[in-house]
């Protein structure tokens, strides 16, 4: 199947014009019917591969970004990103790697109680969201990261988190309580992920 170069131009224009990443459904909607979106995207990706601006896939959506090696050049255009406290940063990492995670699970990994402000900061930044409730006593709320989180950290998927696969393989990402300090009477935590109820 040959690719209509007009379709490539249109996709280019749309992706360039928008600051937000666009997903394939949005592109399909705006391009003429029958446009081969995946082929168009890979064509653009290839065309821009060596340019100062590349096509990138973030959170399953497509956007143009400046080339990673030119970061040093763009000092002036850089947005000031908020500096997170260590507590907030660790909490964010724990939620990202363990999601869905409950407050208690975050606290267990960090070994300290979670202050209200820490979660607030992450909510404010738009990086975490409530995902549902655990079907365990007390039905605690579980948290996960947002699409904005993925976009901000330049990730296409949660599996692209640095070291994700290795950590998972090493069993470091289970949310099973170790139960060593408080002799937790919790037992059936194994199937937790599947048992989560969607509520939000």
């Amino acid at each position, binding site marked *: 199947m040959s690719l209509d170069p007009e379709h490539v131009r249109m996709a280019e224009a749309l992706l360039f014009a*928008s600051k937000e990443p666009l997903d394939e459904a949005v592109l399909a909607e705006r391009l003429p019917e029958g446009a081969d979106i995946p082929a168009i995207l890979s064509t653009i990706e290839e065309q821009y591969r060596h340019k100062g601006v590349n096509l990138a896939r973030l959170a399953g959506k497509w956007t143009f970004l400046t*080339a990673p090696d030119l970061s040093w050049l763009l000092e002036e*255009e*850089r947005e000031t990103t908020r500096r997170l406290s*260590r507590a907030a*940063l*660790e909490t964010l990492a724990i939620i990202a790697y363990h999601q869905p995670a409950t407050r208690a699970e975050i606290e267990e990994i960090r070994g300290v109680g979670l202050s209200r402000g820490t979660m607030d900061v992450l909510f404010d930044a738009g990086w975490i969201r409530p995902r549902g409730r655990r079907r365990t006593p007390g039905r605690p709320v579980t948290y996960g990261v947002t699409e904005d989180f993925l976009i901000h*950290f330049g990730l296409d998927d949660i599996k692209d988190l640095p070291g994700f696969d290795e950590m998972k393989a090493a069993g470091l990402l289970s949310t099973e309580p170790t139960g060593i300090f408080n002799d937790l009477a919790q037992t059936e935590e194994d199937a937790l992920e599947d048992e989560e109820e969607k509520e939000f």
Partner: protein
Amino acid sequence: MDKGSFDDAGQKNTEVIPLTSQALLVDLDGYEGPLDVLLVLARDQKVDLLKISILQLAEQYLAFIEQARALRLEVAADYLVMAAWLAYLKSRLLLPAEEDDGPSGEELADRLAFLLKKLEAMREAAEKLMNGTVVGRDRLQRGRPEAIRITRHSKYECTLRELLQAYAAQKERKGIINPLRLMRDAVFSVEAALDRLEKMLGTLPEWTDLMAYLPENISDPFSRRSAQASTLLASLQMAKEGQLELRQGATFGPIQVKKRKSGQ
């Protein structure tokens, strides 16, 4: 630990001198809980956390807490709970297990090591995340986005039933419609009285009480007085025009009216 990723509060513990020097600077505020202290102490052994000597770690921690208390620093409860638990673990590790109640000292030690490993993994992950490619910092999005211009056509939906209900509900909410409106209804105008008197005069041939000409069904006293006044004014007007005769037997007595016969 890379200082760059953390704020000032978080950096404090990087200044803590490890225990080896026996000059442990006790600054409990710099730690994020007992597990954090344990992790800092564990790093001192410079081995994979899973191969760490938990016994040595427990001793280091207990020494740390003792030192903090000797310096009369306030030690939070969870630090003390940890100390108690580690003392217990130490005894389990040193003494041969006598009965099979619960996990062995080795098992507990493994679990603690694993917990430390987990915390360390998350610390490193957080750091890598911040040191990785951050959009808006390392890779930039379009600086001047040409937003999609949306021309919105609004279409409103409303049914006749909704419209009528809104009107009725509005009326109901206001209670008695318009009190001033009521006043107007209550007033019987002179014109109306004239009209009525002209039409009715003659149906009663003899002297009749003027009040008999009042409209029926006026119960409201205000309306009644209004009708009386208007009818009297109308009768005076008609008397002046020579259409009827009026008489009153006594002061405040009933006013009687009779059609004037032509030629009289």
